[in-house]
């Protein structure tokens, strides 16, 4: 757990006094990812660097698991905190193995242990130790270097990680991949993470909590869902963007809005049976055709079933795309637009039909969001007007 207690940093510059962090109070619970979010120059980096004392606070305290960091030896404090920066900061004179082993070596692990750890960590990010251990940083791509940056910070298994725009310099496609990888690692390792970003999408994706900063002040500290549905003021509203309702879709998975598809047909069923089942189940447009193992293989539309005779196998259309229960609704919505579909089948890991996601289901979810946030905004306005 990281606690910031009235944390303040004032820089004396030629242009005058700058409050880079102004009485910040917040708490990052054990095992959560907290994203510090805000426009450039709002004090995110300054706040982050006060945690490992690269910047000394002007006033206020930082506590890690209740212990005041200013009372600890700075060097050993830092060895217990993983640190990842945007420029990555791998040491070009050291091999990947040496880079990863730095902190374990500094804290006196024996050789066999830190070498084993280096291989283990490389495997965690799907990089083959046999290939990469003996390479130098300049022999790796940007994305690979940043993966090494992350696992180097994890090497000595620190309970706390600080990450300053770690994926900011990586191209968008690789960034998605490395974000997913990090989330997967995080689910296993459960570190307490403070993560700086200026990208709302990244924040929504990564964060358990988002802290929005403006000019050195903490404006709102909430879960991504609350930030998106109940932005506290116009600044936050502007920052999260007009499409915040759409962004919120990213936080919901298919599993949460899945409509179970109880009625299906097989290829051998006649179209008359298909029509009957659609009517019974109240499906307006189509029914899914499954194979003997319950895997969707196509669909029969109501119009075909009403006008044609024969069996379903001959008159089914191919399914254009499938979704998985763990996909987020943003992905699903985008697939729907791409394939011009109003519904998509959802399948399990083994390809079995689990149900469908419909546009109506998604709209319903959006509508619910609008209502609740609208109500809360009005309440807030009342509250502001009242005194």
């Amino acid at each position: 757990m990281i606690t910031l207690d009235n944390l303040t940093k004032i820089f004396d510059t030629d242009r005058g006094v700058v409050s880079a962090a102004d009485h910040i109070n917040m708490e990052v619970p054990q095992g959560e990812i907290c994203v510090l979010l805000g426009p450039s120059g709002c004090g995110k980096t300054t706040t982050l660097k006060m945690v490992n004392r690269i910047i000394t606070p002007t006033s206020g305290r930082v506590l890690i698991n209740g212990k005041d960091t200013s009372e600890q030896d700075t060097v050993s404090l830092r060895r217990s905190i993983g640190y990842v920066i945007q420029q990555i900061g791998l040491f070009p004179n050291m091999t990947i193995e040496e880079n990863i082993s730095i902190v374990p070596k500094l804290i006196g692990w024996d050789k066999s242990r830190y070498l084993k750890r280096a291989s283990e960590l490389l495997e965690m990010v799907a990089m083959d130790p046999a290939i990469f251990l003996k390479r130098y940083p300049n022999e790796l791509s940007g994305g690979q270097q940043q993966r090494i940056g992350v696992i180097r910070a994890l090497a000595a298994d620190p309970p706390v990680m600080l990450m300053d725009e770690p994926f900011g310099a990586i191209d968008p496609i690789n960034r998605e991949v490395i974000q997913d990888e990090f989330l997967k690692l995080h689910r296993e390792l459960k570190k307490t993470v403070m993560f700086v970003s200026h990208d709302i999408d990244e924040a929504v994706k990564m964060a358990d909590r988002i802290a929005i900063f403006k000019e050195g002040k903490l404006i709102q500290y909430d879960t991504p869902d609350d930030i998106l549905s109940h932005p506290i003021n116009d600044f936050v509203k502007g920052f999260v963007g007009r499409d915040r309702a759409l962004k919120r879709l990213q936080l919901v998975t298919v599993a949460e809005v899945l409509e179970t598809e109880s009625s299906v047909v097989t290829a051998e069923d006649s179209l008359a049976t298909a029509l009957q089942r659609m009517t019974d189940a109240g499906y307006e447009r189509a029914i899914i055709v499954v194979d003997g193992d319950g895997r969707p293989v196509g669909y029969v539309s109501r119009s075909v079933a009403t006008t044609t005779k024969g069996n379903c196998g001959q008159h089914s259309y191919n399914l254009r795309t499938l979704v998985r229960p763990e996909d987020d609704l943003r992905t699903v919505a985008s697939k729907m637009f791409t394939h011009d579909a109003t519904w998509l089948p959802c399948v399990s890991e083994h390809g079995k039909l689990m149900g469908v996601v419909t546009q109506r289901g998604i709209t319903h979810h959006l509508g619910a969001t609008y209502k609740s946030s609208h109500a809360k905004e009005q309440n807030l306005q009342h509250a502001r007007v009242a005194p």
Partner: protein
Amino acid sequence: MKGLGTSRFFQLPVLIGVFLLGVYLQRSGLIDGMLYYWEDIVYLTNQHIQLTIISGSLAIAVGLPLGIVLSRPRFIKVSEWAMQGLNIGTTIPTLAILALSMSLLGIGFVPSVFGLFIASLLPIVRNTYTGLLGIPAHLKESASGIGMSAGQMLLRVEIPNAANVIFAGIRTALAINVGTVPLVFLIGGGGLGELIFTGIDLFDTEMMLAGALMTALLAITVDILVAACAFLMVPRGINPSRA
């Protein structure tokens, strides 16, 4: 880094030149003439090498730590001045340095070594200093953020990553050093200058050439030795010649 590339570029023509020169010398009977001084050559070459090794090692032993100290943040005020001073120092001709050294310490071995030491000190200090200052801030931040002490950061991150620049300085310094040694004959230091200057005075081409060729040979050998050290000692990840 640039120096390395250029010297490679010139290596082949130089080798061919040396070879042709050798053929010419053999034909003209100059080689026999030079071999007449063989004992002197051996003795003076030894002396020459001694002068280089002693003054060169002194320059490295003093220059490296001096460059390191000057690059530390707390000396930044002092070091700006010091570097200005050193830069002016480099513009003084080496012969003048030897003359000053003689006026301070008299003639003989000690003033010779001292003069050579001063002449080769400057490039080492300057390159160590600029090499260390040139380490990107994010590397240092990364090192201290990871929990390295100042000393660990210097030894494991700063010096290794400045190694190319530092070696370039040592190479320049030793090139200056070997090239200056013949001049210390003028202040009584001995070395191959004795053959060169005496040869010039006596219009004895063989004698002069014996000294000059030996000096050239030594210069090339030293340069190759330093390059080999750099090749072996600079880690592959930052070594332009091993990329």
